[in-house]
């Protein structure tokens, strides 16, 4: 029996879909059977991020309504062994599925896969409730900005009300230079406010835009720092003890010495 993991955030545009795509692909690269489920009905995007938009025939709503079999709607990603996508419907809305139907679908999928990753829609309405209904655990994605962190805190409360007591946090798009200047909340600041466990930190990285343009997950690009961060996250999900990336690796000796003596801003990695 596999595990159903919902990727959620409250606020939109913080990287849920990118996170789902990359963590899922990384899990598949580690030899797991993985299905990525797009629960954002009416605003599907996981398909384009994964570069699988031309292969959709049936979608999640078709499965739920019995128009097709589950197997027919699952798109096999030919690039990665064991990776599948269950796309959302684009011409329907969130009321097309119920909490019970989503729960049944999640239960069915985890019989067939090691990991079921659900890309949750933004917001805390019906779409959110549907997405979390069948989840065994939750990942919260936030960027280190006030609106995103506040929404993340709201979602933590709502997840708890849904029996998901220990969500784990991914801090996305951390800008190391801004953290050093004291102009962006550090990993420690964010954790201090939200008070949940850290699953990983993904640095702000242009390679994400490039790989999304191409429809290729960043984890397949060995040059991508963010891709490496996502691989680390997948390894932690698998139970490995992987330290948070040293974002100061590219810094010179003098910068490190200065920080050691407390001159200048604190680095992100010192807090990790």
């Amino acid at each position, binding site marked *: 029996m596999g595990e159903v993991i919902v990727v959620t955030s409250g606020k939109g545009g913080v990287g849920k879909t990118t996170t789902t795509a990359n963590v899922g692909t990384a899990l598949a690269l580690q030899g797991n059977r993985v299905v990525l489920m797009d629960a954002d009905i009416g605003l599907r995007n996981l398909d384009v991020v994964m570069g699988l938009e031309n292969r959709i025939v049936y979608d999640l709503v078709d499965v739920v309504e019995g128009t097709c079999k589950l197997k027919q709607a699952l798109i096999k990603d030919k690039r990665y062994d064991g990776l599948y996508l269950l796309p959302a419907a684009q011409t329907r809305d969130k009321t097309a599925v119920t909490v019970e139907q989503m729960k049944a679908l999640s239960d069915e999928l985890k019989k067939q896969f090691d990991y079921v990753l659900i890309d949750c829609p933004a917001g805390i309405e019906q779409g959110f409730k549907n997405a979390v209904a069948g989840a065994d655990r939750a990942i919260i994605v936030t960027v280190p900005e006030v609106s995103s962190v*506040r929404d993340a*805190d709201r979602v933590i*409360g709502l997840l708890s009300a849904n029996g998901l007591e220990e969500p784990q946090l991914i801090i996305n798009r951390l800008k190391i230079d801004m953290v050093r200047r*004291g*102009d962006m*909340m*550090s990993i420690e*600041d964010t954790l201090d*406010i939200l008070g*949940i466990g850290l699953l990983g930190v993904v640095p702000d990285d242009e390679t994400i835009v490039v790989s999304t343009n191409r429809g290729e997950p960043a984890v397949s690009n060995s040059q991508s720092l963010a891709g490496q961060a996502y691989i680390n996250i997948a390894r932690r999900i698998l139970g490995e003890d992987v330290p948070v990336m040293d974002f100061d690796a590219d810094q010179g000796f003098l910068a490190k010495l200065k920080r050691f003596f407390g001159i200048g801003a604190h680095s992100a990695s010192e807090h990790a």
Partner: protein
Amino acid sequence: MDLFKFFNKEETKSKDIARERLKMVVAQDRSGISPQVLETLKIGIIELLSRYMEIDEKSVQIQLIRNATGYRNASSELVANIPIRKVKVQAR
């Protein structure tokens, strides 16, 4: 926060402002107590205390904050700062 200004010689970092503001707003979100309720509470507290002492009403501060431990299960705290001008002699 006054404490902040006191200890900080240079300008406060924007991320520290963000953190403090977030702590406040998150405590309020979690408690489910609206600013209106907090205001009503403030008036009630002033009213009650005024029976026993003279209060500097304009300087009364009532805030919800997170418990110092900073963990999820920590409760929110209601912190009231009420300057007393004079304690009234108890009337019998």
